[in-house]
């Protein structure tokens, strides 16, 4: 099982960042997927290629600002665990972290690449909103 992590610094308060990335139903606003649907602790994510991932939502912890999920019932991805952490940088802003544990290992590389783009998207969206310009798009 491979583990990869991407991080980004966002000049927004952790609680503001959490409102976006801590909401499982808002994934498509910042992650490069086409759509997502949430029912209870299940999420179905549709990729632009039409592939649909079924996910178990494992942790949504607003206190520690941690979101964790697992892709399940997937013919290719045998084991998966994803973690999004929203952390205070000590100066009132945020370090946003996205880590993926995955088998097969190679899929972790692809997911890490997408999560890197997702983090940049989140930074753009949140910092633009903070500036009041709100020009960012996903």
């Amino acid at each position: 099982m491979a583990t990869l992590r991407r991080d980004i610094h966002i000049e927004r308060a952790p609680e503001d960042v959490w409102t976006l990335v801590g909401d499982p139903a808002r994934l498509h606003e910042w992650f490069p997927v086409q759509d997502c649907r949430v029912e209870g602790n299940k999420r179905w994510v549709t990729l632009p290629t039409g592939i649909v991932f079924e996910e178990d939502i494992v942790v949504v912890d607003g206190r520690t600002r941690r979101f964790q999920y697992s892709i399940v019932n997937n013919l290719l991805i045998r084991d998966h665990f994803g973690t999004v952490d929203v952390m205070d940088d000590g100066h009132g802003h945020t370090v946003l972290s996205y880590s993926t544990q995955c088998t097969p290992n190679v899929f972790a590389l692809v997911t890490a690449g997408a999560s890197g783009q997702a983090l940049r998207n989140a930074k753009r969206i949140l910092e633009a909103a903070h500036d009041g310009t709100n020009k960012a798009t996903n």
Partner: protein
Amino acid sequence: MGRRILFITTDQQRFDSLGCNGGGIARTPNIDALAAAGINYVRAHPQNVVCMPSRSTMVTGQHVSTHGVWMNGVPLPEDAPSIAATLRTAGYRTALLGKAHFEPLLDPFLRFAENRMGREGTFTEWSELPDGTRFPHRGFEHMEFAGHGAAGNLHYVGWLRENHPEAMAGFVPNLDGDLEVTTEPGGDTMAPQVRITNGIPRGWYHTDWVADRTISWLDSLGQDDKWFCWMSFPDPHHPWDPPKEELHRVNWRDLDLPAGYIEDAAERERILSSKPAHWMGWYTGSFVSNFEAPLKWVPATLTADNVREVNAMVHVKNELIDEAVGRVLAAIRARGWEDDVDIVFTTDHGEMQGDFGFLFKGPYHVDGLMRLPLIWKPAASAGIAPATVTAPVGHVSLAATFASIAGLGRPAYTEAPALPVSDGDADERGFERVLTEWDSVLFGKEVGVRTIHRDGWTCSAMLPGTVHDGTEGELYDHANDPLQRVNRWDDPAVRSLRDDLLADMWDHLPSPVLPRRDCDAPV
């Protein structure tokens, strides 16, 4: 009217695969004729020995440290310099038909334009510059992509799916169920990635498809248009699965083993032990450091008959490429453009193809991977005499060469001048050395190599990494050791030469772009 440019590339083709370079098996009369009538560079190196970094050098005219595509899976930024964009600004029509691979191919999130275009059946994506000008992707107004088979998002796959879905299963899948490069054995010898049952007719195979699409695009142009056309064949890259109806061309049982293959296992292992540790590590399967080397294949298991059969497949693929080139050249003649077209032929990197007991590629800076075919047949109207150039040159000169053909000055973003037209020209313009870089990080395994070729020597320094502490290296004297079997890195008799080569290399390598960009996919 100005000179047009046909840029022909293949993928993973050795220098010695062509008749004009001493190859005695595959018949390559069309490419040989280009060499005879033009300039044949017999010491041309890529700036990296895998696809994405090497192709990024071709389009940007920059070393790897500058364009920043330091390994496969690192996308070339969309706003990176592009010779196609420069030519388009100068009034050229521009196209790329075949394999681009400036962006990762494994892309289920469709993050990259090449995959989006292929998936959607579109032919470029447009960006808007700050002044409102719309500009096509990397300067190419028309792009149609093909890869190494029937998987993925590229145009060729969509074309097959729509027109000949029954043919798709004939190819070896590039990746296995773990998304690793496949080791699927096949053929008569159970060689990795060999398949002798691909029932696809030759006319539907990607080599002919690339030529068809090239001819179609050329047919769409006005008679007076200037154009830059990059025709990029995915072959002879593995999987080695050409149409079975063409296999009669070369019988593997008739082939001699290539000179680079060392039959005696003990001697092979003695030689590998004299090279830096990653060589033997890969050979035994204990250190597979790069995605391009199939994780589940152990080179030590390669047999002599495997080598013969893989080579036979490659020769077949190379003949198909040559014939496809011939068709495109005939189409150009039919349009009456022949005297005003410059043709440049090369490949992105080589293939071990049995050398030292290996197939595929990786951080191994020897001739199998680094010495490439490079031919420039200038337009007849340019009046440039045929020549053989022995001076070291690199792909990094291609962008400036294309600009020069177009009558433009050397673009400021390029890091090397246009190719020399003779050895005398090379001497006058300082073509003394060529540099090649390697970096890879794969799940904690890190390898870095920096190489210079100068004065008939190849010198490689290992960077500190997983199995190197930064003191190791390779030094080969091509005049006396053309197969690079004697590593003289630690030979006191050539210590001063080694140190001079290293100093020269570090003096001429550009500083790397930092921070290093993320790798977004394995390939």
